[in-house]
């Protein structure tokens, strides 16, 4: 099923006899959803783009690449640097805005500009009763009623089918510089990134790629970028000589080191300073983004990583692989009960990607 209007989608949901598997471009879904395929690509199109207000409203089925090209034409972009997961997951197809939101997909700039959920300012969606709900809007500051926008971001299609999304945007920088420190062990690398992120020189990304280097990015107006890069170099001197290098950010964003490789891929969100020890306990290969707050791990297939690294504060998601465990980190009982309660209220018949997150 591939509705081309919100009304059509609402009718499909109202008439659904069983579970629906919701798909945007099919490029980044994780876990196992069962049910009849419901595609949102027909719900495409820019509803409003105001460069002077840094605002975009578009159908959830709009293709990410087309939107990024449109924004680039005005010297603007989505702030959160959307990862392209096709290489990691071995998928084809074209990512959609709805899929990006459903996964709360956020790349290296998350540490400076926030996640997808932080730039998302409005949604429309069809709930499990087939009713159209709107929340948020097209303005940057809005505390009118509950923030269901955040709740829908990262809900992986389990609360409703997104039909329209609104973002605040950022201008593209005039200049970008990446600095690299060579040969640091993970704990030193995380310490170096913490020093940079704790400085006023405002890096827009900080990642450690074992074997390749520890990378810091500075973006903005030319003079400012030059100045901040110079200050960061001095600040990082105790960790080595920081050289200016070509951008590694697309590869880091898309977890390129693990493309086409055997093994399970896990994504850990944790306190940055915990990352080196947790990665060591995990074994396998690691890629550290977000100053250490995000760790991608390539591990032996089939292992229960959570058991291996326990106890740790944060969460681990199985992005790709064969481990016979829940894809999403099981939550403590009261939180799981709240999440189940919300799903039961928004989707009383259990139509949307049932069992995916719970």
């Amino acid at each position, binding site marked *: 099923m591939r509705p081309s209007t919100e009304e059509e989608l609402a009718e499909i949901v109202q008439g659904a006899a069983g579970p629906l598997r919701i798909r945007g471009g099919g490029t980044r879904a994780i876990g196992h959803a069962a049910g009849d395929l419901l595609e949102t690509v027909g719900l495409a199109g820019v509803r409003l783009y105001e460069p002077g207000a840094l605002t975009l409203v578009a159908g959830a089925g709009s293709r990410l690449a087309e939107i990024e090209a449109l924004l680039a034409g005005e010297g603007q972009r989505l702030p959160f640097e959307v990862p392209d997961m096709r290489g990691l997951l071995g998928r084809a197809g074209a990512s959609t805005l709805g899929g990006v939101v459903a996964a709360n997909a956020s790349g290296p700039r998350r540490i400076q500009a926030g996640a997808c959920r932080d730039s998302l300012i409005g949604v429309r969606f069809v709930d499990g009763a087939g009713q159209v709900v709107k929340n948020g*809007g097209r303005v940057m500051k809005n505390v009118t009623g509950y923030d269901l926008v955040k709740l829908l971001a990262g809900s992986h299609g389990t609360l409703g089918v997104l039909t329209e999304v609104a973002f605040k945007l950022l*201008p593209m920088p005039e200049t970008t510089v990446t600095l690299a420190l060579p040969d640091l062990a993970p704990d030193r690398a995380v310490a170096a990134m913490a020093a940079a992120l704790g400085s006023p020189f405002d890096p827009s990304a900080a990642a450690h790629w074992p074997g390749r280097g520890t990378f810091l990015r500075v973006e903005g107006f030319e003079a*400012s970028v030059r100045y901040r890069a110079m200050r960061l170099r001095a600040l990082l001197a105790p960790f080595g000589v920081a050289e200016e290098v070509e951008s590694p950010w697309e590869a880091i964003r898309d977890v390129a080191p693990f493309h086409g490789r055997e093994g399970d891929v896990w994504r850990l969100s944790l306190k940055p300073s915990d990352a080196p020890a947790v990665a060591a306990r995990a074994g396998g290969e690691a890629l550290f983004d977000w100053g250490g707050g995000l760790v991608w791990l390539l591990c032996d297939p089939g292992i229960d990583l959570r058991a291996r690294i326990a106890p740790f504060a944060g969460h681990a998601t199985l992005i790709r692989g064969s481990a016979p465990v829940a894809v999403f980190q099981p939550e403590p009982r009261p939180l799981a009960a709240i999440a189940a309660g919300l799903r039961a209220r928004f989707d009383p018949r259990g139509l949307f990607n049932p069992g995916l997150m719970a």
Partner: protein
Amino acid sequence: MHMPPPDAGVLARKSRIVERLLAVLPEDAVVHDEAETRAYECDALTAYRCPPLAAVLPRSTDEVAAVLRVCHEERVPVVPRGSGTSLAGGALPTADCVILGVARLNRVLETDYANRFIRVQSGRTNLSVTGAVEADGFFYAPDPSSQLACAIAGNIAMNSGGAHCLKYGVTTNNLLGVTLVLMDGTVVEIGGAHLDAGGLDLLGVICGSEGQLGVVTEATLRILPKPEGARPVLMGFASNEVAGACVSDIIRAGILPVAIEFMDRPCIRATEAFAKAGYPDCEALLIVEVEGSAAEIDDQLARIVEIARRHDPVELRESRSDEESRRIWLGRKSAFGAMGQINDYMCLDGTIPVTELPRVLRRIGELSAEAGLEVANVFHAGDGNMHPLILFDANRPGDLERCERLGAEILKLCVEVGGCLTGEHGVGVEKRDLMSVQFSPVDLEAQMRVKDVFDPRWLLNPAKVFPLEASGVRRAG
């Protein structure tokens, strides 16, 4: 504005309820004497007052949980209260409620510069969070103008913003985790020192839920390294339209100032008379502040000034020292106080798309003339968050009602042009009955379902946010 009649059964059981509260709290943490409960009869929306049944001032998460268990069992409504600075009546009591004040929960629990967060108890004031880390070069970004007094608990409840959120975001963008006590006394930990949610983003919906989903007792907040410096430029323009166009051009040019503040003529005149900041005599004034090193500031201000020159400014005053910066901000920061000297006023908080600024200001002018009440505009222009101040005389019969009608018209206008009722103050009771202007019954139902899950008996701050007729069945239990 109406509140539901108090539950006669609860009122009749007052002594038993107080006894049960005294059984789980020290004596000095339970306020039940009628003279003393008056201290909690209102928040900063002083037009409405009602003493609560009792007030409690717990000192720990365990005590909060114990209080909520008692109230849950006794089916007593609970109104959480931070510092009572809500402009929307978020902490307004009803006669049958227990006020749960978090003022005694004010400790810093953990400061972690390597991971850039601070964990505090929720009664701590906004400014004192920054106070705890500024000697080490850090700050907490959201800066509501009540920051000297307002509590983090209230900031989370209202998802508070401030003058600098154009660059740093509002509370929800700076909140990493909470300890939340549910109405039945269950304590849950949501989020922490890590950046994103493992399952549904419950933190995202708790922030801004106006104390209706649970009581936040602890919070993990993101702290940021302080910029090297900051300096404003003041610009005067011949019309609101031109000033609005200048704002839009600055944003289009790829410059992201930390603040763009706008004042119109009535506001300039009043603050000038009060604060004598030396503002130019003009129709509209912008204060734009940028951050960075001295050279970065010079570079950005030069770009901004160049854009401003294209709009024929009647005044361009770039700050060159801390003293000049202080003078530029003086009028803006004393704007509300200045208005309070002249008149009673009502402060609105709608947000509009920034491109609609000129049209909305013109229409506000017309509505103001029709109502016969002056409106002064002062607001965060970069993000479209307006604060029209309606001037009235509380001692003149009918003036408050006229003011409220004009306020409602202005907020409807904000919604009509694509904006919203409230950008940072919250709905509370003040905008509660206007919610159906912005939301359909289905939209409101979707929001109320969230409360059904967190607080099935609808005991937490129940008569706020949603129009009474929309929430009636649920509140009746």
